C-alpha cells in the first residue's frame, strides 16, 4: 500500500497500520470512494514526536449521562426500541489496555433514522433519542454504555441498498498514530454480506473484528441485552514513554 521513501533514522519499513485488515481507499462497490480515493501511494515515514504524541483526555471530558443514550436526550419519556448495553476493552497493538481512551459514539434510532438534516429516510425521529454519546475507558481499558439497538436504513449506493444496523465509534488512544474511527455491527445480520462498507475490509478475520458478540453475562434481566466489542488501536503506547520520554 505505502511506498517507502528513504529516511535517515528510519527504524523499519513496515507500516504501523496492518494493511491486511485495514480497508483500501478505493473500493468501487462503495461508490463514494471512487472520486475520494487518493491515487498516489502513501509515503511511508518514520514516526517522530508529532506522531508519538496526541490529545489526552480525562474525566472532565465526560458528563454524567454521556454514556447512557436512553437518558441523555430525554424530552418526555424513554426512547423507543430494544435497550442494549455495549461493553468491551480498548487495547493497544501489544495487547495492553488503554486507560482514559475517549470513545465518541453516534448512531441511528430504532427506526433507522439519524437526527441529522441530511438524513432523508422516511422514518420517524424519536424525540427522546439523540443518538450521540461519549465514554472514557477505565484503568483496565474497559468501557460501557447503554443505548437502543439501531435500525437498518436505506442508502443510495446501489439498487435496494440497506446499511446493516451499526454504531459509529470514534476512539482516541494516547498517540496521533492510534486514532481510529470505525463501526460496530451486530452478530448474525444477513445485511452484512451485502454491505460494501463492511466488505471494504479486505480480510474475513478483519471483518469479524467489527462484529460485536452477544454476551448473556452482560445482559441484565428484565432490562437490556448485552453485547461485547473490543477495540484494538494501532500503535504501542508504551514505546515512546519508555524509549523517548
Amino acid at each position, binding site marked *: 500500500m*505505502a511506498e517507502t521513501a528513504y529516511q535517515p533514522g528510519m527504524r523499519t519499513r513496515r507500516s504501523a497500520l496492518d494493511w491486511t485488515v485495514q480497508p483500501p481507499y478505493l473500493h468501487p462497490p462503495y461508490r463514494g470512494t471512487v472520486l475520494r480515493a487518493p491515487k498516489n501511494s502513501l509515503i511511508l515515514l518514520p514516526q517522530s514526536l508529532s506522531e508519538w504524541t496526541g490529545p489526552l483526555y480525562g474525566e472532565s471530558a465526560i458528563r454524567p449521562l454521556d454514556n447512557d443514550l436512553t437518558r441523555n436526550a430525554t424530552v418526555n419519556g424513554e426512547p423507543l426500541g430494544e435497550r442494549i448495553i455495549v461493553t468491551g476493552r480498548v487495547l493497544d497493538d501489544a495487547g495492553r489496555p488503554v486507560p482514559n481512551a475517549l470513545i465518541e459514539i453516534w448512531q441511528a434510532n430504532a427506526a433507522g433514522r439519524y437526527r441529522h438534516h441530511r438524513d432523508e429516510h422516511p422514518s420517524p425521529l424519536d424525540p427522546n433519542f439523540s443518538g450521540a454519546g461519549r465514554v472514557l475507558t477505565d484503568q483496565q481499558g474497559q468501557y460501557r454504555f447503554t443505548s437502543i439497538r439501531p435500525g437498518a436504513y436505506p442508502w443510495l449506493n446501489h439498487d435496494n441498498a440497506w446499511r446493516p444496523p451499526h454504531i459509529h465509534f470514534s476512539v482516541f488512544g494516547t498517540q496521533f498514530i492510534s486514532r481510529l474511527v*470505525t463501526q460496530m455491527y451486530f452478530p448474525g445480520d444477513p445485511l452484512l454480506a451485502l454491505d460494501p462498507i463492511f466488505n471494504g475490509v479486505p480480510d474475513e478475520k478483519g471483518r469479524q473484528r467489527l462484529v460485536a458478540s452477544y454476551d448473556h453475562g452482560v445482559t441484565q434481566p428484565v432490562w437490556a441485552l448485552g453485547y461485547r466489542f473490543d477495540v484494538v488501536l494501532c500503535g504501542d503506547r508504551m514505546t515512546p514513554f519508555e524509549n523517548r520520554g
Partner: protein
Amino acid sequence: MSNQTPSQTVGPFFHVGLIHAGQEILVNEHTRGQRILVRGRVLDGAGAPVPDAMLEIWQADAGGIYNHPADPRRAQADPDFSSFGRAATDPNGEYQFKTVKPGTVPGDDGQQAPHINLRVFARGMLIHAITRLYFPDETANDTDPVLAAVPDPGRRSTLLASAVPGEDLPTYQFDIVLQGEKETVFFDFSE
C-alpha cells in the same frame, strides 16, 4: 500489529456525535504566540468541494512543545493552548481553524520545520488520510525530513500553505485535494 481493528468511514452523519461548537478554536486570550487562521477547501477527484469531510489537527504550541508525556519538555508546554482541533467542512467544502503558528519540533536528526499534522475523514473514505501543513517562506523547510521525503517538487508543494494577504490575522490557505492532478501528499507511518 496483532488484532488491529479495521477502520470504517465516518459516513455522512458524523456531525451527530463529533461536531461541537468551538472545536476549531485552539486558543484563548492567554495563549502564547502568533495567532493565525488556517482555512481551505477539501476537493474530490472531479474538483468538486467535499461538503461532508471532517478535519482533525494536532500541532505543537508556539514553543514547539507538545503537552504530552512523550515530550520531555512537557512541563514548559503552554497550558492555554489546545494542540487538538476539529472542524467539519461546510456546503462549499470549506473549513477554518484559529490557532497559533507552531514552533519547530525536534526530529530524529535535527529539527522539523513548523507544521500542523492533519487528518481527513469523510463519507467515501473507508480510512482517514494523513497529511501535514507547512508554512511558506520558512527557511527550516529546506532541511525538514518530511518535506525531503517527497522528492517531486510539484507534489511537495501540496504540503505548503499559502499566505493570504489583507486579513486582520495572518491567514494561511491550505486546500486538500483527495485525488487528481494536484492530489495532496498523504502519509503512512512505520512501526
